[in-house]
């Protein structure tokens, strides 16, 4: 079980969090033309990297904040955790 440092609450066990996928995906802006390809990329296509991955987690059983976690998908090492509005 991972030990995730919530930037708001501190170190907590993984079972307080839920996973939210790739944190680098940007939603296309509202009311703008989006090509089929761009929209499919946004909705469906995700990289599955072996190594560093910036991902979203929500501290659902804690502060309910969505946070960013930089994690190694191979070793599960967590390098850094960020608040939703912080960039790496």
């Amino acid at each position, binding site marked *: *079980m*991972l*030990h995730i440092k919530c930037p708001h609450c501190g170190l907590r*066990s993984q079972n307080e969090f*839920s996973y*939210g996928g790739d944190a680098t995906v940007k*939603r*296309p802006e*509202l*009311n703008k033309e*989006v090509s089929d390809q761009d*929209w499919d990329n*946004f*909705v*469906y296509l995700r990289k599955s990297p072996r190594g560093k991955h910036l991902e*979203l987690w*929500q501290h*659902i059983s804690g502060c*309910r*904040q*969505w946070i960013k976690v930089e994690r190694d998908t191979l*070793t*599960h090492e*967590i390098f850094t955790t960020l608040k*939703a*509005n912080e960039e790496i």
Partner: protein
Amino acid sequence: MSENFRLDRGGLINRNKKISFTFNGKQYFGYEGDTLASALLANGVHLIGRSFKYHRPRGFFGAGVDEPYAIVQMNRNNEVDPNVRATEQELFEGLEAKSVNCWPNVNFDIGAINNFLGKFFPAGFYYKTFMWPKSFWYKVYEPIIRKAAGFGTASIKHDKERYEHKYEYCDLLITGSGPSGLASAYAAAQNGAKVILAEDKSRFGGSLLTSEVTIGNQSGQEWAEKIISELKSMPNVVVKNRSQVFGYYDHNMLVMSERISDHLPKTEKYSPKQRLWYIRAKEVIISSGSIERPLVFGNNDTPGVMLSSAAKEYLKIYGVLVGKKPLVFTNNDSGYETAIEFKKNGIDPIVLDTRKNSNSEIIKEAKDLNINIKSSYVVVAAKGYKKVNSADIAKISDDKKNISNIENIKCDCICVSGFWTPTIHLASQSGNKTKFNKEIDAFIPSQSKQKETTLGSANGIFTLEETLKTSFEKGNELSKQITNKENKVSVPSVVEKKSSNHDKFWCVPLPEGKNYKRFLDFQNDVAVSDIQLALREGYRSIEHVKRYTTLGMATDQGKTSNLNGLQLVSDIENKVVPQVGHTTFRPPYSPVSIGAIVGREIGKHSKPTRKSPMHYWHEKNNAVFVDAGVWLRPRYYKQGNENLFEASKREAKNVRQNVGVCDVTTLGKIDIKGPDAAELLNRVYTNAWLKLPVGKARYGVMLREDGIVMDDGTTTRISENHYHMTTTTAQAANVLSHLEYYLQLVWPELNVNVVSSTEQWAGAAIAGPKSRDVLQKLFPDLNVSNEGLPFMGYMEGNLFGVNARIFRISFSGELAYEVNVESGNGNFMWEKIIELGKEFAIQPYGTEALSTLRIEMGHVAGSELDGRTIPYDNGLDGLISKKKDFIGKRSLYKKAFIAKDRQRVVGVVPIDKKTSIPEGSYLVRDANLKLPNPKLGHISASCWSVEYNNPFSLAILKDGKNMIGKKLFALSPLKNKSIPVEIVSSHYVDPKGERVRS
């Protein structure tokens, strides 16, 4: 029966307390402090089971967790416990155990014929034999294999025992209480670190309990006792016996199973049977010791062949002789220690040493005791079927290739020692890249991946002096870094006998003309010949060899077999062991009961149960409950002998004719506040929200980004910047997370706050043509007329002193209202509604009637919004705004979603107007086509229409829009039904929706 093999004195057992137990129905006696294994051996019982594949007789091989054979089935306090190692099971009064893997009994086992058919059971035989014909698998092969395989029979009864989980944090977790564990724990404790010391066995001390050493001025055993009692008295130390750390997981989390009651005749009141500890440790010290390696020779699985360290343990801890004519077969000095122990107890052993000339303090002691030592000698084969009765021994050439002078000597046990294998399972599980140490012919931990340090013989250090020195140092160093305190203790002086080098030889060649089975993996019956075959068949990767031959698999995880297997592969391949590498060690290190893993989260405890404030009223009024997510909701209220069907029909009918009241507390509620609240709703819902006036509710549908409907519900504008959103019971948590996601990550510029208020409000839906009359009685001062409170209107009121929110919304399709009050007042509200509604014939209705009402009205719900449908499919396309963008809108332009024959919700009526259509049935054009019959759609929900008094269903049907009036068949292969049906509009009752506006 008397204990013929128990010494008159010695051991750590309590000879004042005799214990009776039965094995395979026969009664025996042992003492408090025995294991089942030591007590059986004291009684001369060596035959305990049959082997996995060949059903060869099996005895005891070890004395602890490394035991590969002696697995028994226990009966304890009327509960069955399979897969118990007799070497670990402590004896208690009345213990009942029996053999596994044999039928009809251990002495006459029909499966033993496999032994004589051995050539038909080579490596990979499951894969080869049972591949063809395919149809034979289920009916013929599988049942036979199931009967023949396995280590016992699991109970089919509910396990009445209690198991607990515990979460713990500590500075240092130390796994094993041998010399390295005790020394490091002691040093760390002195520095104020929070230490957990876990010992798998009941007794602390590990190898100190059986070795002849002096620490300071005490024996090893006395020193261990002293350290343990000091540690126990320290507030910063937790000392646990019968506790095995079996898994090392990510971020230094380890899991330990504590066997609290397994050694007792029955679990004490309020006590769990076992407790699983989830321990997050800052540092982990692995002091798990080492396991003696077997030597490999013909029939080396015969009962009576066992590890020499086990024989010594039975002698020193239990005062039990594993034989009276022992043969010790060794390639190192450890065998001599066992021989010396026999000799000291009046038994004459013979030592066969594979080495030519060895000399050390230990060997000298053996010689001084006049022990018969044969150098350059090996055991070629054990003789005897159910028990060793003699051994063929031989001289071995200096190059270890040839044997000569084969002779048969009488013996009743063969104690083998092939040197020691460090127990590196935990280090390997943590991700440690282990390395091969040529000096000890074994892998030891190397680069740590997590915060883990391995000490003592687990790290390949076999002298006590070095072990204590490094362990005191490491315990001090690691704890000092955490506590920033140092209170260094001096390392005690050690007296121990020096050993000579071990022999690298481990596998005795077969004599000419003999094809004895030489076993590597005793639990899985893997012999040398199996590995040779696997390699001949082209398997090269050790992971493949493992799976093909089953070497090192199952509950044993290769504790005794792993290294010899690797060595053999290396020898055949002419490689060195490190190139072959070892297979991955997987948790658990030894079996953990399913009960412990599940803990208390079983049955009703597997999830929380939420009850509405009106729950006890429902209970008192004969409600029959149903699980709705985590909630319990009344399904129907039973009157007299009514069944579900009759009761729900009555309740639904009463709503249509008079008025009913339904507990809707469980609906998800989200409180939304902020100047941008309307903008958020406008982006989240598919329809327009910017112009909703204060005091009005609106129905909305929200999508996922892929265009699939996520949820629906009504949201009400309470005041300028304040909205009250409702969600379905099931999706409440997801919708909240969904809103938080967009507010925190995508549109942080929106000034809105959301919070769940589901449990803050109790809700009652009052529905039916007479609902306005009831509402007027509840709020005599309010104007609740159609003009005063129109459809989708909202007002606040005072319900006899209680603040209430009144929404004119309807799920039943009737004129209806929902009244919300603070949860604490829920029951008060409910009773008022029942009391004042009496004159209008009000009746409570449950979820079954609620479903009936919504289905015949064609209101879609969870069974249609099933995560596979878009708004069009649900007839909700009218709610899609063309003017604005919203979550998921772009996806609705996908080709499949705008297809002309896109699926859509329809109504379905059986042509005979009698036969109910099972939910999940397929709709097909021709009922008689061969399967797979092309499926046009499926029945999503079924009810008995109270309006028309016939069955009615909703379906999601391909090209549903153009199918109204068509005749199809509903097929339910599950219920073996084929029902002719007619497709009708999904709005079966009040298609114009006049009632809700009346």
